[in-house]
């Protein structure tokens, strides 16, 4: 009976896995042979105009929905935090939003915005603050009036500053509760140590921030020459430009500052850096210097990153670490190109006992790609990047924000319009060349957050290729 049982099981499995249903009359055609019509792709033209004060406005009118988006990119990001006062840029933006403006208290502004269901919120990044305003078309004038008062005459109520400080400190205390988030923060701090980019707010740096610092930061960073504007949605050009002109025409007292950010001077530790934490999974992150956005290597490196770990299930790291070995749910790579420097990284979240196995698998992939990359893999990655480019033009807001971003960072005027052509020009040898140039073993930082068990696995670690 036992033997029979086995046969029945085998039969059942066969049936379950490969049975051909009787109704399946039409054999499936090969997906590779599907003929597609050409894609009609002509993004709506964005108007680029200058206001009398020199502010550049990108504008796209679209009336499908009764909503207006206004985005402002402002050189007021966290990289401009004075030493010892890390967190100032973020607090400034927060307290501008909550601490009242002109004759209104912060609470009055909240009630008015909520009544109109409008949003005014800042997103603070390293090199800029992105203020996003959105409102129903009928309310755009009133919402802009509130925002421009926040921008020019924030009250910066000390009570709201205290709230913002307490909330930020509370979040910092809880950071280590979420191991992966904590690990990425520590990785950033260690990778860029000694540089502007490696600084992070701490309880001590927050304690150093006074209301006067906020007043001064606002004065030094929030003025017309530091701002690029993007507007999209259901609003007529005349209406929005008349609002913007009233706000920005009068010369503000500030003068442009030399705001160029020097590239970081990266000096990577020779040994893996480990942070011990009692957590069920280890987080392993690596970092390499990578080409800046304006480097000729940028396009080839985008393709390389896609192949390595950001290009979906078939990218090499995901395929090997997750699919083939079942070591990790979250694994892959990232490429962060800035104007004058770049960072390439890989990551895996895995059981503590598998930490070194996951890392060494990734390390091998980074080395092998310098030798075994083929034309087919490069062409597939290029196709994916080129074919999905159209999604960067999905909504009016996306379209104007992209143009504004390119202008804000001083990228060439044809940066986006030439993007597809430049990716098409990338060849196998170009990708192999950038892989060899940048994925140099002795220029890699290895960071582990996990139990001692995970960290000790790295004690005997020697880089696979130590030759400079």
């Amino acid at each position, binding site marked *: 009976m036992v033997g029979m049982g*086995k046969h029945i099981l*085998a039969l059942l*499995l066969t049936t*379950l*896995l*490969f*049975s051909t*249903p009787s109704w399946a009359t039409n*054999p*499936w055609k090969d*997906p590779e042979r*599907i003929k*597609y019509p050409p894609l*009609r792709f002509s993004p709506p033209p964005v108007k680029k105009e200058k206001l009398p004060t020199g502010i550049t406005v990108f504008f796209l009118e*679209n*009336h*499908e*929905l*009764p*909503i207006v988006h206004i985005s402002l990119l402002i050189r007021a990001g966290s990289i401009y935090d004075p030493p010892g006062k890390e967190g100032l840029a973020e607090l400034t933006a927060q307290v501008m939003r909550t601490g009242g403006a002109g004759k209104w208290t912060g*609470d009055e502004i909240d009630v008015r*915005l*909520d*009544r109109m*269901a*409008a949003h005014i919120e800042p997103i603070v990044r390293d090199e800029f603050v992105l203020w996003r305003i959105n409102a*129903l*078309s*009928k309310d755009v004038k009133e919402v802009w009036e509130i925002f421009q008062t926040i921008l020019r005459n924030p009250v910066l109520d000390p009570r709201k500053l205290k*709230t913002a400080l*307490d909330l930020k400190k509370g979040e910092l205390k*809880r950071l280590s*509760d*979420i*191991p992966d988030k904590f690990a990425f923060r520590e990785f950033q701090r260690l990778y860029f140590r000694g540089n502007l980019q490696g600084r992070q707010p701490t309880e001590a740096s927050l304690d150093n921030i006074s209301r006067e610092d906020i007043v001064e930061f606002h004065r030094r960073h929030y003025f017309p020459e530091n701002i690029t504007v993007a507007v999209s949605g259901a609003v007529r050009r005349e209406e929005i430009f008349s609002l913007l002109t009233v706000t920005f025409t009068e010369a503000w007292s500030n003068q442009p500052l030399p705001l160029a950010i020097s590239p970081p001077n990266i000096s990577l530790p020779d040994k893996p850096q480990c942070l011990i934490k009692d957590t*069920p*999974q280890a987080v392993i992150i690596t970092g390499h210097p990578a080409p800046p956005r304006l480097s000729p290597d940028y396009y080839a490196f985008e393709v390389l990153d896609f192949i390595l770990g950001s*290009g*979906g*299930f*078939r990218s090499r790291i995901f395929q090997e670490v997750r*699919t*083939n070995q*079942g070591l990790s*749910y*979250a694994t892959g790579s990232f490429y962060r190109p800035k104007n004058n420097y770049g960072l390439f990284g890989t990551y895996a*979240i*895995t*059981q503590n006992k598998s930490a070194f196995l996951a890392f060494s698998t990734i390390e091998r992939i980074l080395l092998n790609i310098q030798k075994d990359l083929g034309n087919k893999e490069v062409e597939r990655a290029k*196709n*994916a990047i*080129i*074919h*999905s*480019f*159209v*999604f960067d033009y*999905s*909504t009016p*807001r996306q379209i104007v924000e992209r143009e504004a971003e390119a202008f804000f960072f001083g990228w060439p005027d044809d940066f986006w319009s030439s993007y597809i052509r430049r990716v098409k020009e990338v060849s196998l040898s170009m990708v192999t060349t950038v892989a060899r140039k940048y994925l140099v073993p002795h220029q890699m930082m290895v960071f582990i957050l996990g139990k001692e068990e995970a960290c000790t696995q790295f004690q005997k670690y020697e880089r696979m290729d130590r030759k400079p």
Partner: protein
Amino acid sequence: MNLRHLGSLVLLLALTTSSALAQDLSLDKRIHSFELKNGLKVLILERHISPTVALYLAYRVGAVDEQEGKTGTAHFLEHMMFKGTKTIGTRNQAKEERLLNKILKTGKRLDQEINRGEKADKEKIEALKRTLAHLKKEHRKWMISNEIDRLYTEAGAININASTGQDITIYHASFPANKIELWMRVESERMKEVVLREFYEERNVVLEERKQRKEANPQGALYEAFMSLAFQRHHYRRPIIGWAEDVARLQPEDLISFKRKLYVPNNATIAIVGDVDAKKTLKMVKTYFGAIPRAYLQTPPIPDEPVLKGEKRISLDVKASPQIMIGYHKPPAPHPDDYVFDLIESILSRGRSARLPKRLVDEKAIALSVEAQNGLPGSRFNNLFIIFGRPRDGKTNAELMAYIDEILEELKNREIDDQELEAAKNNIVADFVRLQESNEGMARMLAYNQAIIGDYRYTFTYLGRIKEITPADIRRVAQKYLIKNGRVIATID
């Protein structure tokens, strides 16, 4: 996922904006709705802003439909649906078939031996592991891994993903407008059948996912403990990802049997939003999905939740900062009181001036964050209205809860004024408009409402109900449901 109430707002917008605007937003008239002979529902909305299309395929099946002891089946199956089909992902079907069957037999024997615990024969385990490794290596020669994702990615698709809920499983991707046929080709074949390649490797991936979401993340751990306390008998008590012990024992036949019963056209909805021609698109849907036969839907019986006399509490022993969840039992949509709860959620926590953040984060400085959410963990059965809170440094969950209670008491004892009510309704409206900006948001909403409520038009009719809600309704519903009897509280202290 609490999308259904967002759908109800078009009409409300019509109330607050000009009539011309309201006319522009009558999307219900622009939606092409069909039902194929096999029961598959198809919703198509043409939008020509950009040459892109969002494609959503929703099955009305989720963790709640799993048998006891087989938790995690729906979610694991969702992972396995990306492993390919008979024609996608193979180099030689016959050779693959033989090897796959050997792999599955060996894997099962290995599981059985491991599951003997201390009595397990270690040598036998090692031998089986070696055999399995060898078979997997052989199998790799005849299969093509991750081929569905490769096809989609190379075609330029983005947001290629799926999500499993208690009530619903959704597969979605966004394609350049000229390539939707590829989606039809792949999705229709995997609706019919899927080949369970790399089963054991993926089971490990799911267990890692569970660790990441539920064990390493205190919020995930708290949510899991809270739900298993809130429901004693109903399947909502079980985590969507499954209990680790169940997942580790799941076998291929568990997944296939689950799929055969429930991944059928008469249990599915397709929503397509974007730059398409509705007529041609429907023809394509019929070509690919039309021949798949309907099936008799088989779901295990789901026990009702008994009414609890008293309050339930759990304090989780986890090394993390304090947080609290407070839940109240209530009926799901489309019960009239569920609409009122959507408004209560808005009054309590949508916008900076909403009651919970305003009073507790700003004025009383007791909370780091606090918010309300209606309709968890699902919407096919009685569900919960939940408040999530994190006390400030130096404050306790008990102190925070005392203030939350005070705010809930106010809802019962004092009628809300017109201005606050208007803001609460308007916030829901604007969120709806924002959701519509993306093809993905619109497609998700249509697919969800059709699959869960049974009618996509819910999106457009619900609004009238919201409009009718009065301050007295809010007070009545608060008095009826926001009570200590039956309340569930979970904390990390």
